[in-house]
């Protein structure tokens, strides 16, 4: 009984999500559905990058490279198994299963790439790490660009259209749940310690190199997932989708939302996706407006929308939820005690 309950608790977000997403999928007009897909993919990217850049405080600029690894891995599998049918199961179900396998493989391959890149580069810090990861991201892309087997510069086209609201939505839930549970675990706290003070973390028995590599691998795996999803949404996987501009877009989301804040990453990823789509009509001024928006936000809130806090730690929401002083559990890693709620209900 207890075991059943704990299993239920583990998968509760997914169960609820599945129901909601199935409903959304049924009623959502296609135009909005596309934007929602992009949003979802960006949320996966931003939250996963936050594990490295926000939780661990290591500045990585190579996220697009891992996306590419995931996208191509998944594309190869879905293309290779496009006519495949499991015994007993129907064709449609088989193809969904193939996609699930492809997503898993994408994550695994991206994680391997993350490990290979992380091992040598994580000896470096700050700007140096940023430059090295940027370099590795570009290396991954140019390797792909030069492989016949992966279609070189034209990439792989004609992928089956598999990414729908359910797949993307479940991936978002998987990513957010991962980040949230990580943040409230021993493992996550070790990452925060590295961000706060590496020397002290090491002196307190935290294997800083090991944990940095771990964070990098986890983050890369979810980037691979995002890559696979986007490739099967636009039915295409080309090297041009994964240039370092893409990496920087994701970094912008994370910084804007607040380094270390999961909800911040989510809000920023959604806002920027919508902003870019909304500005599509003003093609010529699009990037100007986008840049101005960023400048404005950085001037007014240099620590990002929520700093290291979560949205529910902000004074406004605290009052709304009538929560007493700070809870130290959960993702409120960097929460600051705010005067107007400290004397609260307790």
């Amino acid at each position, binding site marked *: 009984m207890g075991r059943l309950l704990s299993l239920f608790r583990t998968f509760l977000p997914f169960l609820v999500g599945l129901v909601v997403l199935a409903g959304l999928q049924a009623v959502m007009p296609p135009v909005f559905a596309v934007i929602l897909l992009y949003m979802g993919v960006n949320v996966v990217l931003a939250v996963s990058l936050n594990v490295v850049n926000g939780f661990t405080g290591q500045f990585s600029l190579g996220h697009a490279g891992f996306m590419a690894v995931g996208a191509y891995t998944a594309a190869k599998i879905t293309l290779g198994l496009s006519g495949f049918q499991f015994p007993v199961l129907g064709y449609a179900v088989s193809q969904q299963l193939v996609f699930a396998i492809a997503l898993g493989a994408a994550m695994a391959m991206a994680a391997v790439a993350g490990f290979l890149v992380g091992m040598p580069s994580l000896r470096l810090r700050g700007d140096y790490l940023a430059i090295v990861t940027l370099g590795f991201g570009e290396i991954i892309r140019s390797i792909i660009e030069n492989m016949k087997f992966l279609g070189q510069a034209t990439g792989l086209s004609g992928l089956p259209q598999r990414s729908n609201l359910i797949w993307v939505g479940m991936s978002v839930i998987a990513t957010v749940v991962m980040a949230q549970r990580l943040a409230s*675990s021993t493992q996550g706290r070790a990452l925060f310690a590295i961000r706060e003070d590496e020397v*002290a973390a090491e002196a307190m*028995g935290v294997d800083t190199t090991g944990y940095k590599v771990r964070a990098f691998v986890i983050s890369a795996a979810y980037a691979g997932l995002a890559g696979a999803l986007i490739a099967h949404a636009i039915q295409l996987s080309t090297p041009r989708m994964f240039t370092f501009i893409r990496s920087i877009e994701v970094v912008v989301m994370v910084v804007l939302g607040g380094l270390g804040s999961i909800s911040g990453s989510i809000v920023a990823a959604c806002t920027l996706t919508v902003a870019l789509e909304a500005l599509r009509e003003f093609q010529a001024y699009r990037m100007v407006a986008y840049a101005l928006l960023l400048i404005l936000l950085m001037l007014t809130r240099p620590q990002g929308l929520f700093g290291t806090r979560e949205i529910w730690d902000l004074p406004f929401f605290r009052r709304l939820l009538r929560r007493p002083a700070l809870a130290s559990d959960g993702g409120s890693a960097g929460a600051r005690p705010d005067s107007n709620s400290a004397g609260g209900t307790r």
Partner: protein
Amino acid sequence: MSAPLEVTNVTMRFGGLKALADFTLIMQPGELVGLIGPNGAGKTTAFNAITGVYVPSEGEVKVAGVRVNDEKPHQICTRGIARTFQNIRLFKQLTALDNVRIACHAGAQSGFFDALFLTGHHRREEARIRARAEEYLEVMGLSHRRDEISRNLPYGEQRRLEIARALATGPKVLCLDEPAAGMNAAEKTNLMGLVRSIRDRFGLAILIIEHDMRVAMGISERMLVLDHGITIAQGKPEAIRKNPKVIEAYLGDAYLEEKHIAVPPQENSK
């Protein structure tokens, strides 16, 4: 049984500079040893050589009989040597509880996937770590500050939190680098009482760097005096007090006249 910490003939060279020469120290369980010396004498260097921040140029550091010269700080910490820092190095943006919980990390068994799937093992361990962390906060009188961001704590409490954090790693030897720096006389007395009670309660050996002579003499059972990296004297506080070399190097005439000595300016951080 071998001593919890054995440092034999450790020399630290930085280029042409010998920051520490032939440093030897054997700590017995439950011992309270004071390490004193003027600014730049090599006290913190000695700490760094013991805890693995530096690799000794010569000599040997053994923890419970195992040579640890080439181990990283986190490995040495896991073997049972914990430290605090001269210039407080808390995890500033985290709560007091989280600071201590991070230090409980060492023995934690559950990994990333345990956390991801909230396994029973993971939840039991989290609960255990939390209970332990709260116990250490309690010992250091910081329970009421549990959910406070450590940066916002008053200075003295930050120092105490650092000790709580070091204790939480479950050490056999605790190295305190000027734990009383910047405190007033009453706070110092208080802290030293606390240090002694920690030693008694957990049966630790404690190595303490202290600038204030009266405090150092008051608390240590045995003292080591460093000057320019050389151990110029060691022994019981009473003997140190009378040792002419020590008086010359460090104490000066003022101490002989039993006047209060102002705390000398802080050593530069590394």
